[in-house]
């Protein structure tokens, strides 16, 4: 960058540090030095209002000039010291920053994406108890919540389905000729693909797998669907048709199988197949 031009007009009033320690002691004289005379000249205050200029005077160069004289000089720097606490805060922040980078950068690897100061236990400790709904009423309560957050956007609040999505209310797969617990658990665990016939109508919508939900949640939502709207599959409150154990058992059977089932594969599962060992085992 070039040096400022040497023909600069007046060596201006660059203030120098020093003088008193108080803000006022420094500022007082400085401000006088900075202000244009028009500013500190008290007798001129009458000009400060409309309509004081004489007619014709308004267009004159002098009038404009006065206006510019009204302005303060360009701003200058003061030279107060930096408070000590600011230095302390800066130092503290820098130390924290170094520590944080040191502990959270995972050696700058390109294939590690998560924080390392994770306070969440990797595995859920044994002493954390999951809800264990036993009765149809309890299952329905949890199931309504799960249905409302996962299923409702396709199957609708009334279980009527729509736009390629089969209905659940009155469906033969839920509460009719095709209704089997083993089939139902697999539908929610692995999803459905391809065409499927429900109540005589053909539907073709892929249903996603919900295997990421916990077993009791899947059991609950199935119980909810089996007993809502016009469906009522579980008359005995104490004996739910789809207990949590049934989902657990179905999940453990297929192991890692993940691809959704087709209608043919579903029909290949016997309606009365039971995955769960008698409840006594659990």
């Amino acid at each position, binding site marked *: *960058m070039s040096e400022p031009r040497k023909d600069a007009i007046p060596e201006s009033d660059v203030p120098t540090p020093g003088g008193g320690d108080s803000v006022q002691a420094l500022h007082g004289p400085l401000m006088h030095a900075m202000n244009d005379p028009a500013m500190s000249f008290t007798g001129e205050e009458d000009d400060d209002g409309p309509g004081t200029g004489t007619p014709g005077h308004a267009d004159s160069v002098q009038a404009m000039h006065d206006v510019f004289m009204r302005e303060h000089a360009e701003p200058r720097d003061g030279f107060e010291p930096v408070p000590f606490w600011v230095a302390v805060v800066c130092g503290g922040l820098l130390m924290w920053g170094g520590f944080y980078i040191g502990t959270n950068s995972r050696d700058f690897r390109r294939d590690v*994406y998560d924080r390392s100061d994770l306070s969440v236990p990797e595995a859920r400790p044994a002493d954390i108890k999951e809800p264990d709904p036993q009765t149809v009423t309890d299952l329905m309560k949890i199931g309504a919540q799960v249905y409302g957050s996962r299923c409702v956007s396709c199957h609708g609040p009334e279980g009527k389905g729509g736009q390629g999505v089969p209905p659940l209310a009155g469906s033969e797969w839920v509460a009719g000729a095709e209704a089997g617990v083993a089939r139902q658990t697999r539908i929610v665990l692995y999803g459905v693909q391809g065409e499927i016939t429900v109540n005589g109508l053909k539907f073709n919508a892929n249903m996603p797998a919900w295997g990421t939900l916990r077993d009791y949640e899947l059991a609950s939502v199935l119980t909810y669907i089996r007993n809502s709207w016009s469906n009522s599959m579980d008359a005995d409150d104490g004996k739910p048709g789809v207990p949590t154990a049934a989902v657990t058992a179905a999940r453990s059977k297929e192991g890692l199988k993940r*691809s959704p089932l087709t209608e043919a594969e579903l029909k290949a599962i016997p309606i009365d197949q039971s995955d769960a060992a008698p409840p006594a085992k659990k």
Partner: protein
Amino acid sequence: MDRGMVIFLGALLTFSSSWLGLVLFPFWQLENEKPFPDADRVSDQPLIASGSASLDDPYPQPLGGQALAGKRIYQANGCMYCHSQQVRSEKFGNWWENGVMYTGADIKRGWGLRRTVPRDYLYDNPTMLGTMRTGPDLSAVGPRYSEQWQHAHLFNPRAINAWSIMPSFAFLYRRVKVSGVRLEGNQYPKLGREWTVDPGYRWRPTDAEWDQVIREQGDAIRSTFASSPAGAGLKNLDDESTKKQLLDFWLTTPEEGFQIIPSSDATALVAYMLRLNKTEVPLPEAKE
């Protein structure tokens, strides 16, 4: 600091630091990501969720054809500003239930089977990770919904979820007169009568209007209703309780003589969304 050079050099150095650190270094780190090869894949696991790719193909595959055209529509209409395309890990975030802390809402919501990693975005251009979740994440929306559902939802999201605030994309569809037979197929949304009035607006007739409709074409409506699964077994179609069912039926059956046809843009957009499945192949680096 009265010298311009000091300011210039300082600005250059500070900015270079971030340019090197936040742009060039990640660029060098990530530019040589490769598709996932067959050899590394565990063979005894059938991993492909839907039929979009075969087991022999490396993952991911670049988009092509309709899906690629659909991505442009997705871009042009700013879908990215409400829908992200990234699934966060099982350890991400937290929520409490009965005093117990859980994490990993994205996966629990069914948005994907695993977290997404850089390799999933190898052919994404631009990479629309998203900035906002006014709507759900779409990284793996492909297998979640059918083609027909997507069309109906695009046409008017409130037809499927009454609470939805997604804009209607009815402008991607045309209402045409049916000449001869109706077009059938997954790409033709089976939209009821309400969609054919003022595209995008849900329309219900007033009582007076509905009475007039019944006066004019009541017999035809009743006879189709009686022959449909919903109307089967209902005997007296004139009493008050069935009147409401009749209206619902009439509203949800397609308008006589007209049909909603998707434009090529709508077809492409749906093709893109059906193709979105960023979590279909488990990658080694995505393991927690």
